[in-house]
């Protein structure tokens, strides 16, 4: 098995191509080739102080990769650190600190050959022992890392000569994707332990100053092992939480790029000739999970009625101003390798919704929907919009406004029907496992479909492409028809970049060029 086996990521979309294409899945397939970054693809050059304004980030941030929770620390993490593997800007998987890897036939044992001649910022050379210690930081009893559940299937990590061997509890054909996760940065170890908050890594930039919630300054790592990355002299990551402040800073040229533009004012920003607006479908989607173990959502027909009672196109046009795609009640989109294109797109159909209500033995239905903008920007508006749409199908949706503060702790996974979101995932298996497997910690629909769970485990270890494709197609159909999630829209990552900045095609696995803006971009002028 070598790098680049699968290419599951999503095609690039510009806003105009979506709007002109009439918004939808058909447009996305065609749009990939339409998208061109504005600066010509001149050869990258060195130098300059790059300033990046990012929406998230908090004074409580920590340099420990196990705590990276949002774009800000994730982007800083990708400037400071390298990972075993990297998802490229075109969606292929390539080795980063792993030169190559191979699997045992049952996909349970994975052997990664570790690159030689790589140095950490403190001058220490990278060894397989560093890789093992970096993984152990996220594993086992007492680990406080947010990646513990990710590495839960790993039963052993050991160094052996110049390789590191991972043993899994069950086969996983996508395991090399998993180790590209932003938590799994490779840190220098001493005595088998890493110092997670030191900020020392082997990335393109060295940490110069770190003020949580304000700014992080990094400077070029002169001995970086990649010759075609890390062009800037310094990169300054600024936390600018307020979208108006971020837009002002962008418009006055104080920062060179920003994420999360305000879609309400995007038409004004588009007039500014000194910047380009990017829009990338990274598989991020908004959801309305229903608890399939609780009445009335334990009846499949009730779930079906609610799925037919939402107008996805209106949600896309009003909530996202077209910057996205409509969803089909399962998280795998056209960009994933195992997307099921045969699955019919569900539309808004109050009559069908009424039909399913009658099937469930009901004349009308009244449900509470817990909503807060903590779930995603505009979640409360979306809930109210849904209330209006569902009313036409004889369903009364009572929108319960929940406090944003503490939403993930006291509402999500607790209330039977609420608003939520998921980020895009590198593989179909990951997207389907994290929120829909029976024993997943974040199975927010409490869905337990025997056939789905059997297929999920079987497909994960299946190395035969055709059989795998078939299994994933069936899983998507099961989720679409029986699952507990209403998935109205996929939301693009939107931001703005100064025309002074040069870049290649933007990656779609995460926002800000796969979180690697600092490493990949350069000053064109």
């Amino acid at each position, binding site marked *: 098995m070598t790098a680049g086996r699968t290419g599951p990521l999503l095609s690039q979309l510009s806003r105009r191509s979506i709007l002109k294409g009439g918004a939808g899945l058909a447009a996305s397939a065609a749009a990939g080739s339409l998208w061109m970054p504005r600066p010509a693809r001149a050869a990258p050059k060195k130098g300059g102080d790059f300033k990046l304004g990012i929406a998230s980030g908090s004074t409580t941030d920590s340099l420990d990769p196990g705590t990276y929770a949002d774009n800000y620390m994730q982007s800083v993490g990708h400037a400071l650190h390298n990972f075993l593997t990297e998802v490229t800007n075109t969606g292929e998987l390539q080795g980063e600190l792993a030169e190559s890897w191979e699997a045992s036939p049952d996909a349970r044992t994975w052997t990664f050959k570790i690159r030689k001649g790589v140095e950490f910022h403190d001058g220490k050379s990278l060894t397989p022992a560093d890789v093992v210690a970096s993984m152990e930081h996220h594993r086992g009893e007492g680990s406080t890392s*947010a990646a513990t*559940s990710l590495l839960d299937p790993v039963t052993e990590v050991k160094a052996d000569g110049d390789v590191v061997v991972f043993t899994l509890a069950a086969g996983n054909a996508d395991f090399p994707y998993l180790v590209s996760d932003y938590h799994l940065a490779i840190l220098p170890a001493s005595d088998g332990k890493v110092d997670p908050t030191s900020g020392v890594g082997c990335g393109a930039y060295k940490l110069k100053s770190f003020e949580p919630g304000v700014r992080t300054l990094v400077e070029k790592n002169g001995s970086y092992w990649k010759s075609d990355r890390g062009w800037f002299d310094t990169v300054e990551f600024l936390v600018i939480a307020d979208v108006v402040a971020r837009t002002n800073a962008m418009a006055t040229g104080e920062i060179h790029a920003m994420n999360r533009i305000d879609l309400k004012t995007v038409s004004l920003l588009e007039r500014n000739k000194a910047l380009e607006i990017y829009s990338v479908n990274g598989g991020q989607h908004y959801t309305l999970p229903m608890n399939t173990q609780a009445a009335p959502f334990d009846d499949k027909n009730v779930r079906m009625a609610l799925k037919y009672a939402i107008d996805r196109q209106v949600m896309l046009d009003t909530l996202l101003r077209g910057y996205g795609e409509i969803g089909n009640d399962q998280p795998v989109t056209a960009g994933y390798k195992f997307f099921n294109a045969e699955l019919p797109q569900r539309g808004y159909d109050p009559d069908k919704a009424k039909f399913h209500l009658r099937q469930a033995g009901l004349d009308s239905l009244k449900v509470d929907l817990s909503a807060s903008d903590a779930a995603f920007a505009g979640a409360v508006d979306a809930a109210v919009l849904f209330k209006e749409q569902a009313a036409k199908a004889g369903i009364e949706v009572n929108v319960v406004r929940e406090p944003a503060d503490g939403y993930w702790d006291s509402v999500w996974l607790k209330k039977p029907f609420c608003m939520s979101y998921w980020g895009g995932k590198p593989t179909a298996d990951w997207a389907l496992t994290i929120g829909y497997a029976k024993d997943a910690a974040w199975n927010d629909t409490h869905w337990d479909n025997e056939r789905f769970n059997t297929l999920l485990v079987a497909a994960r270890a299946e190395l035969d492409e055709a059989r795998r494709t078939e299994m994933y197609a069936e899983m998507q159909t099961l989720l679409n028809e029986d699952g507990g999630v209403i998935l109205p829209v996929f939301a693009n990552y939107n931001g703005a970049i100064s025309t002074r900045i040069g870049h290649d095609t933007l990656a779609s696995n995460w926002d800000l060029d796969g979180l690697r803006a600092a490493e990949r971009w350069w000053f064109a002028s």
Partner: protein
Amino acid sequence: MVRELIRRPARPMGPLAGLVARRLALGLLTLFVVSVIIFLGVSLLPGDVATELLGQSATPATVAALRHSLGLDQPLVARYGLWLGGILQGDFGTSLANGRPIGHLVAARFGNTIFLASVAALISVPLSVGLGLLAALYRGSLLDRTINALTLVSISFPEFFLAYILIVILSMQAGLLPSLATLNEGMGLAEQLHRIALPALTLTLVVIAHMMRMTRASILGVLASPFIEMARLKGASPARVIVRHALPNAWSPIINVIVLNLAYLVVGVVVVEVVFVYPGLGQLMVDSVQKRDIPVVQACSLLFAATFVGLNLTADLLSMLANPRLRHAR
């Protein structure tokens, strides 16, 4: 009688020392009560630092591990006792969220807050007292009405809106001032002042009306007194009447309003901090409340409370120094 009232104080310090000591003791008690209320309040909020930090990616195992490592599995009273013990020894502890020492974290932010507040105060206090005097001097004139109208307009806008207007005019269109007020180490004072010009200007516009109107009103109040009429009859010029005769007797309410506004400049400017991305104490406190980082919230609220107590004490003392009737017990 007139002579008695406007005479300079002879021996003000005797009863003052006792009063200051009493007020300081009361202030300490206030701080203690504030710390208990904040501790209880934050503890009553749903979730704790472990669930808020892990957010959507929390699992019961990681939450339990994080709680244990932070000592959150101990009872509330024990945690408060530990914190209080640390404070009494001058140790603010470390942040629960990122393990950094709070003293260091808060000192830098508080320094920034004080810097911005001082600059805003240095502009706004002389300006508003001066404008108040002018308005009183030329009462009913076009100047008086213009000053009144303009300051009322500026106070009537929400502060973030005022900030955006200033950004559009001075930053986006004229390109004179930066819209981001981020301060870096190694910046000279001139550059720092340039950076914070817009937030300082915004704050000035927000506080100026209150102080200016109080100056005007309290001077006009004193102008109705018989001793002012006496001064006029003696042939003193209007300016002299106001500055030498009316102002010393009008200081007390003016000082109180000035101090209230100074306190606002320190504790009430979170919105302005957010708009200009200024790294002050307010933003730190809001973040910490969101993440339930109780020791940091405690440190911030104690600083805010101490600022209020200290400024109020200063106001009372200054009022007494300026007003003999308050200085001598009857």
